[in-house]
């Protein structure tokens, strides 16, 4: 399976892409997928979302199609 990764705001500059698609397993987690892509990534300040829902970095991907990397929000 594959999953599309979206990086927003500062995460885009940190990771160097705004969207990319990678291979993965259902047992992968946001953390394993992102660290495979960028082994030095620092995830502490970032949140993950699967198909538009916040999840922990260690939730299994399941059949999610979209993984988003979200810096602290600042709308309004």
């Amino acid at each position, binding site marked *: 399976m594959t999953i599309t990764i*979206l990086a*927003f*705001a*500062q995460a885009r500059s940190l990771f160097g892409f705004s969207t990319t698609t990678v291979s993965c397993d259902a047992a992968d987690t946001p953390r394993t997928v992102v660290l495979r892509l960028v082994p030095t990534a620092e995830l502490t300040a970032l949140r993950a*979302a699967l198909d*538009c*829902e*916040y999840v922990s970095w260690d939730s299994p991907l399941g059949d999610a199609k979209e993984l*988003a990397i*979200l*810096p602290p*929000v*600042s*709308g*309004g």
Partner: protein
Amino acid sequence: METIITFTEAPIVIPPLNLPSREIGASLEFLGIVRELEKDSVLKGLNYEAYESMARRVLTRHFEELGSRHPCEQVLFIHRLGWVPVGEASLFVRVLSSHRQEAFLFLDALITRLKTDVPIWKSATAGP
């Protein structure tokens, strides 16, 4: 509760007030405006981006949760994206309710949640 969520790259145009019933007693509107001074630096504006599909979903859930605590009849939410110059609005929210207290509590809590939980970001780095 009727809810409308709009994201727009164009300047926000405040929609005319349209009362859904004869029981609306309060209309509360908030405009968030880009200021020149932010954390001691002088800005010309701010750049906004959103993860729009998720922002809609998260906002809708907050509308429902807040509406069950503070019943309101209508929420109109408009967030501007892209470059917003100083003095222009990045955010417009209108809440209609029978009594003012519900509209105040709903709107105040909504903006707090917007600023902590809805995937929208501002940055001072990119000009027009």
